[in-house]
């Protein structure tokens, strides 16, 4: 960010640092909050990645003794929780914050102050979670960090199986963090509903706006059950209630229902913004309008709706009736249809276009390949009997890292390269970018591609070590080796960001020759986004301006 856009303040001069810090801490500007979301998410990504690296080190050979079992358990819990709630979600809100007002031609979100609260609650709740690494120990001498897995199954979280405060931190974190997410999601939905500029009918909104709105709608519906469940669990732990107390008649399975009723929509909450980013980048770098816009919108809404009716596929092995498993296997597989539509439409967009394989587009291409693999392994898991074998094995770990990294994270990388010039006025270096891309791509595929095999060979997840004669070593050591490449890749990205923010090539208003409204203002945009609220006539307002003889409006 250029330092000149710090809020001018009338009070007497103070140290520039204080001014700078104050500017960021008191801001209600959606762009700054967006940048803050994304930067903190990157920070937490490095933390979560380091936790993962430690796990991979411990698992790289059988019977290693690099850490205590309990430590390993806190590592995967914190890793999963961090990556989902402190990386994935903030990335969503970061991009939503930064882009939605610009894309729909408004000055800010509907409730700017609420927006700030949302961010700070997210940030402090993350601090609370990590405070567990000192707080719990220091004050009570009991287990500090949560060690119950990112879905904290009852009754392992009950006070008699997990004394100490570990699970409490986790529960409070999802409860408080959830409030922040709700605030921001509400804000986004209201913004999209009420603050579109003139001419921006719902079917002219950029796809990013559509998909992020669907994701935020899902947050509104899926988050409260988790909050409710965590309240109940807190009551169980501290006030002696019996919701999940299996000795008092409570049900362990009920927790699973509540968690996954949130948990499954959550994964689509995470991936829809990924889809959103890809849907913006692919057309621009193919130089073609998105193929089948109405179908894309319909597919997104459809995914959102169906996503709420499939949660039991995480519970196929719980011993529910065959009828129930059949229903949920079918509903899960149905999601392949709208998702397939998306994949095909993206390919349709590229087909016949003129592909500029710059960094953002490269990331999207990788996204397409990897998400395809990931989705197909998802289908295998959705076949309930097959899942009896695959569930809770490293095959599942491979599946969800393929969706979360191969899909979501690559889309986020693409988004970073694509909008960095808008946010800073400078391009992210292409050369270092290629290093980042190839290192991470190869590292990722090595780590997680090979992880499917130990899964099929019976290696369960969440084990801190394994027997020597199972034949799993070779696959694990390959997986661990891949992490080195990934880490190198991430370093390239971080260096690139820091370097380019200061010394990158000047971007200009519209470096990619793109078509949506955010490129119709300066880079970085002024606080007020647009001097005059824009007026649009089609889905690609800038296309219309650039090609007045071939405007879109007439054809939509």
């Amino acid at each position, binding site marked *: 960010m250029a330092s000149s856009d710090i809020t001018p303040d009338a009070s007497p001069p103070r140290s520039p640092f204080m001014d700078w810090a104050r500017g960021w801490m008191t801001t209600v500007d959606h762009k700054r909050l967006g940048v803050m979301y994304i930067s903190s998410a990157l920070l937490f990504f490095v933390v979560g990645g380091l936790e993962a690296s430690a796990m991979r080190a411990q698992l790289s050979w059988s019977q290693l003794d690099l850490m205590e079992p309990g430590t390993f358990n806190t590592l995967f819990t914190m890793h999963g929780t961090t990556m989902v709630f402190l990386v994935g979600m903030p990335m969503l809100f970061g991009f939503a914050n930064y882009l939605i007002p610009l894309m729909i031609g408004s000055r800010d979100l*509907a*409730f700017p102050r609420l927006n700030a609260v949302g961010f700070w609650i997210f940030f402090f709740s993350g601090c609370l979670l990590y405070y567990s690494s000192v707080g719990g120990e220091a004050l009570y001498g009991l287990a500090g960090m949560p060690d119950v897995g990112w879905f904290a199954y009852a009754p392992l979280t009950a006070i008699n199986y997990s004394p100490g405060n570990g699970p409490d931190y986790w529960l409070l974190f999802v409860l408080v963090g959830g409030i922040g997410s*709700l605030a921001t999601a*509400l804000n986004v*939905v*209201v913004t999209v*509903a*009420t*603050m579109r500029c003139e001419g921006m009918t719902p079917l002219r909104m950029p796809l990013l706006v559509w998909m992020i709105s669907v994701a935020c709608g899902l947050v*509104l*519906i*899926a*988050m*409260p*059950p988790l*909050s*409710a*469940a965590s*309240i*109940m669990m807190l*009551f*169980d732990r501290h*006030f*002696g*209630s*019996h*919701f999940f107390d299996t000795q*008092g*008649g*409570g*049900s362990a399975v*009920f927790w699973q229902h*509540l968690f996954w009723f949130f948990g499954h929509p959550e994964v689509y909450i995470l991936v829809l913004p990924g889809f959103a980013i890809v849907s913006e980048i692919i057309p621009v770098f193919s130089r073609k309008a998105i193929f089948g816009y109405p179908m894309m919108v319909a597919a997104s809404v459809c995914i959102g709706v169906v996503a709420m009716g499939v949660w039991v596929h995480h519970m196929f092995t719980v011993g529910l009736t065959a009828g129930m498993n059949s229903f949920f296997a079918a509903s899960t597989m149905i999601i392949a249809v709208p998702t397939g539509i998306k994949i095909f439409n993206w390919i349709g967009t590229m087909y016949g276009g003129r592909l500029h394989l710059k960094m953002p587009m490269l990331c999207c291409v990788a996204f397409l390949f990897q998400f395809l693999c990931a989705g197909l392994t998802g289908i295998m898991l959705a076949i309930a009997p097959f899942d009896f074998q695959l569930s809770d094995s490293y095959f599942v770990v491979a599946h969800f890292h393929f969706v979360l990294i191969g899909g979501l994270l690559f889309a986020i990388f693409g988004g970073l390269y694509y909008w960095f010039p808008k946010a800073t006025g400078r391009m992210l270096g292409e050369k270092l970018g290629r290093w980042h891309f190839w290192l991470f791509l190869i590292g990722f595929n090595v780590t997680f591609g090979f992880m499917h095999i130990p899964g099929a060979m019976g290696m369960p997840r969440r084990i801190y070590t394994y027997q020597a004669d199972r034949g799993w070593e070779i696959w694990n050591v390959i997986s661990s080796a891949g992490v080195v490449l990934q880490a190198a890749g991430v370093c390239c990205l971080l260096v690139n960001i820091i370097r380019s923010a200061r010394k990158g090539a000047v971007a200009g208003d519209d470096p990619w020759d793109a078509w949506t409204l955010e490129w119709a203002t300066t880079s970085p945009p002024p606080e007020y986004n647009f*001097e*005059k609220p824009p007026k649009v006539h089609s889905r690609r307002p800038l296309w219309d301006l650039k090609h007045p003889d071939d405007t879109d409006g007439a054809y939509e």
Partner: protein
Amino acid sequence: MSSLAQSDATAGAPAASRKGRWGMACLILTESALFLTFVVTYLYYTGKSLSGPYPVDVIEYPTVLFNSVCLISSSFTIVLAVRALARGRVALFKVFWVLTMLLGLEFLVGTAIEWKGLIEQHELTLSSNLFGSTFYSLVGLHLAHVTLGVLVMLLITTLALFGRIRREHAERLEICSWYWHFVDAVWIVVFLTVYVYGV
């Protein structure tokens, strides 16, 4: 160009109320999901308590029915209050508004009395059994919402007494009143769940 700030100001009012409406609608949506979770929990665990006290032993209708009548009728008085304000009849507004608040307050007091009975006579607490856990959490969540509503109404009453509430606030207060209607509607669901189905 220079008309920009101005046009914003004039466009501001209806836009603000649209935001308010959508915001409240979204809030009600998530709150419904929250309540629904507790209701489902209650239903899931009905009849699963391992030991007493059971609903049939402890649930008494007189107080709760009176409370319910008060709460439901407050939905009507709040409509009257908002209408009065929209027509500019501030005094009438104050009367109905205070009445609404008092009805809400009665609900709080009434429930407190009911709970006192449950705790002291029947020894039903959050930790007695599943019925206690689900009962107090569901009804308590609703109660928390009523409390919040009453507090907000108190605030607005104070402002009204200082003459700070005027006709142009009718729109905002109407949006606030949605929340109150929602709380009332939820009570009907809670009542049906706990006092009709659950017994």
